[in-house]
């Protein structure tokens, strides 16, 4: 039979109480018995001593009649079994009766011996009898003695009575102890039972009642803590449910990979994307579901322990074996249970984007083939016309031809920029990196822009120089960037102003600064400077022939070259662009 806490506690208390009670009772009875025994013995010794003292004279005179009368009184004492007076030879003189059946009999040898050598009491105890012998000496010689036998039967009776009383008292207190134990355990287990019921309801997912905190002791504290736990659990459940809804609702795929490389969890987007149920995905090696990005053996190889890695292109394997292009971000996730971290993968479906990129590529290819060629032919023809190949043109015709020529040149630049931007976006632009001297490139860019500047009546002045500074770049692309920046500076400088170009070393890098005294870049436009096709609608901006792609292309090129491009601008004062490069 299984005992609950209450039963065990009560059983424990009962066992302890019984054991304790038995031991105590035994000790008490023993102690009391010893005390009674001692009292009885002492009483016996005292009586015997008194009788012997009173009998001494009669014994000395051999007045057996007087001894008889004396002993006759003692015989009637409580617990006295028998009394004899005996002479120095150990022969009984009288037993207190007239009949005196013990007359002349010899007392015990040991007693006889004792009285002849000692005047001290001799106490002999056997079973339920005690014999006390008081030797009587006179003038240094033994006369005999008094021997009184006492019954200790009453002692046994008294002991039994005492034991019964003690046991009764013990049983009473044991019953009280059991009752107290039962009440105490009830006080403890009842609240515990409520906690157990509440915990059971919690485990079964049922409504959990709020426990009443009846006391400030440990049980009350348990109830209060349990209430707090269920409250937080309820909040956590709500949060988890919300998180689950978010994960189920989000369009991006979420995959959690365990430290062992197997899939721990996936969201609905993953299941919808690959066409498999969560149960079919969880537990599978992640390599079977997610292909490795280019340059890595597996997706988890691309993990950076310092933080998330974004922009990885990988493929999900669908149920039918087809692959789905994904843009993946992966980050390590510390797991308290595992020594190795788990991984969180967020992936966006690139299928549409790939289609769009393909469309863009198709468009660019179309522009390249269908627009640029004819445009080049148009510009060429117009150039010939402007050059008088077809004869002198009148002023009006010349003006119209120059307008057409400028626009065709602009169209060509636009097409070239579009192609360049597309190549950059697609990562298909070739860079021929070389270790070259920087200053010649800067000078080349300045010279290449001077004609443009002259046309706008803006001078370009090369102020600072770092001769001998070398850089690891594609020279043509760097010149392209510098020319673009200079062109913008010229474009936005007032007539008659100067665009200043300076080269300097700055924090281990080389900086080419191009400063104009133009209207400056409005605050609301500054974070769009490098965006595509972004042009201010402000009247202060002159957009002579910009395509809106120049800064975008320049920024992309500088990033590919390992540098960067930034600017500082003050409205109505001017703007300075900084082209930074690492010095090789």
């Amino acid at each position, binding site marked *: 039979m299984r005992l609950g806490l209450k039963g065990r506690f009560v059983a424990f208390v009962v066992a302890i109480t019984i054991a304790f009670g038995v031991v105590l009772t035994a000790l008490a009875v023993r102690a009391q018995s010893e005390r009674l025994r001692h009292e009885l013995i002492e009483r016996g010794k005292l009586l015997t001593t008194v009788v012997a003292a009173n009998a001494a004279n009669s014994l000395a005179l051999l007045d*057996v*009649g*007087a001894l008889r009368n004396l002993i006759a009184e003692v015989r009637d004492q409580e617990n006295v079994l028998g009394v004899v007076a005996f002479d120095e030879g150990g022969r009984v003189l009288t037993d207190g009766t007239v*009949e*005196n059946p013990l007359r*002349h009999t010899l007392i015990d040898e040991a007693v006889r011996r004792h009285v002849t050598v000692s005047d001290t009491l001799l106490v002999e105890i056997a079973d339920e009898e005690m014999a006390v012998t008081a030797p009587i000496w006179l003038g240094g010689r033994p006369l005999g003695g008094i021997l009184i036998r006492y019954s200790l039967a009453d002692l046994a009776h008294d002991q039994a009575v005492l034991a019964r009383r003690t046991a009764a008292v013990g049983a009473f207190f044991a019953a009280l102890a059991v009752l107290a134990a039962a009440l105490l355990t009830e006080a403890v287990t009842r609240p515990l039972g409520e906690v157990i019921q509440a915990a059971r309801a919690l485990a079964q997912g049922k409504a959990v009642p709020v426990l009443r905190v009846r006391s400030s002791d440990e049980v009350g504290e348990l109830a209060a803590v349990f209430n707090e736990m269920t409250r937080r659990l309820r909040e956590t459940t709500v949060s988890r449910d919300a998180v689950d809804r978010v994960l189920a609702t989000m369009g991006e795929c979420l995959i959690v990979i365990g430290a062992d490389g197997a899939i721990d969890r996936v969201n609905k987007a993953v299941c919808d994307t690959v066409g498999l149920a969560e149960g079919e995905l969880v537990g599978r090696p992640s390599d079977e579901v997610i292909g490795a990005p280019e340059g890595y053996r597996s997706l988890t190889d691309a993990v950076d322990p310092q933080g998330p890695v974004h922009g990885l292109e990988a493929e999900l394997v669908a149920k039918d074996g087809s692959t789905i292009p994904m843009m993946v971000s992966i980050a390590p996730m510390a797991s308290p249970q595992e020594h190795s971290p788990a991984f969180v993968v967020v992936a966006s479906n690139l299928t549409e984007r790939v289609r769009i990129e393909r469309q863009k590529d198709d468009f660019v290819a179309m522009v390249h083939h269908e627009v640029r060629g004819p445009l080049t032919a148009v510009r060429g023809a117009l150039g010939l016309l402007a050059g008088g190949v077809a004869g002198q043109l009148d002023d009006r015709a010349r003006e119209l031809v120059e307008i057409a020529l400028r626009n065709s040149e602009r169209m060509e630049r636009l097409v070239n920029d579009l192609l360049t931007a597309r190549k950059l976006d697609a990562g298909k632009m070739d860079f021929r990196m070389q270790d070259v001297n920087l200053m010649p490139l800067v000078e080349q860019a300045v010279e290449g822009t001077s004609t443009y500047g002259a046309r706008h009546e803006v001078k370009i002045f090369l102020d600072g120089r770092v001769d001998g500074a070398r850089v690891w770049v594609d020279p043509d692309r760097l010149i392209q960037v510098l020319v673009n920046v200079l062109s913008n500076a010229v474009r936005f400088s007032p007539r008659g102003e100067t665009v200043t170009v300076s080269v300097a070393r700055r924090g281990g890098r080389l900086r080419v600064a191009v400063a104009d005294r133009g209207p400056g870049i409005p605050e609301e436009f500054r974070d769009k400077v490098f965006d595509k096709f972004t042009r201010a609608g402000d009247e202060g901006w002159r957009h002579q022939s910009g395509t809106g792609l120049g800064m975008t292309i320049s920024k992309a090129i500088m990033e590919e070259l390992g540098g960067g491009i930034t600017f500082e601008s003050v409205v109505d004062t001017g703007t300075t662009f900084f082209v930074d490069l690492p010095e090789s």
Partner: protein
Amino acid sequence: MPTFSRASTKLALLVVFLAVPACGRAPSGDGQPEIRQSPAPAGVVILGSVSLDPGREYEVFRPFADYLAAHLGEVGIGTGKVVVTDSLSRMVEALRRGTVDIYIDSPFPVAFVCERGEARPILRRWKRGSETYHSVVFARSDSGIESADDLRGHVIAFGEPFSTTGFLLPKATLVSSGLKLVNYADSAAAIPSDQVGYVFSNDAENTLFWVLKNKVSAGAVNADYFAALAGSRMDELRIILSTEETPRNVVCVRSDLDPEVVRKVEEVLLAMNDEQLGQKVLRDFEQTTKFDRFPTGAAHDLARVHQLLAYIEEDVGQ
């Protein structure tokens, strides 16, 4: 009409049941019909005894006196009294003056008073089943004392001074044999060779142990007790003298007591052991067995007592 509960009805009946018998009962202390008794005879019978413990003696004699008186109505006696004197001479005086009618005692005191003419013996009193007793004189076997004559120069222990078998009879017998017995206070006293010293042990057991332990050379005790007293040490003792048997106890009456009363007293005493109440009174009266007449007449049966009395008259008259 009021109704009564069953309980109240029962109670009423109970009261009636108890009340009815009480109505016809005559007031009486014990419920027995009263019997008119004739007044007790005015005569008194007085029993006398000699003792140094009058209170105890009175308690012993009183029931016997009452019984006797209760049966002497025929002779005009209705009351019994007890008179205790502290000496034999006073008893003689009491008998002379008529303040004692009946005197019961051991043979020597009775013989003493009878010789003074103040009383005459009428019956024997049996005690503890015997009508006579005698004494033995004994010594240690290894004492060298083999006869009474060997007691000269030695000390003999007697019991109590008033004891017949413990003192009077053995002394009288020893003196009658020609020995001169002299009372000594100390048993260790040096006794002249022509005397026999004697001391009182006051107890038969004392006498025995004194002889065994050589405190005295010889002792005298009631022959009925000797064997029990000697016990396992009988072989250490030797009886050197055994006295004659004497009546154990004698009933004597005042010499001038009405013969009719005497006759009636005899009749009552002789019949006492024939009826239950009489037996009880006898038992309580010092273990008396019965009373009977002297087999060969009081004079004859007490002749030797009178003879021996001459040797111990001074001792008896104490």
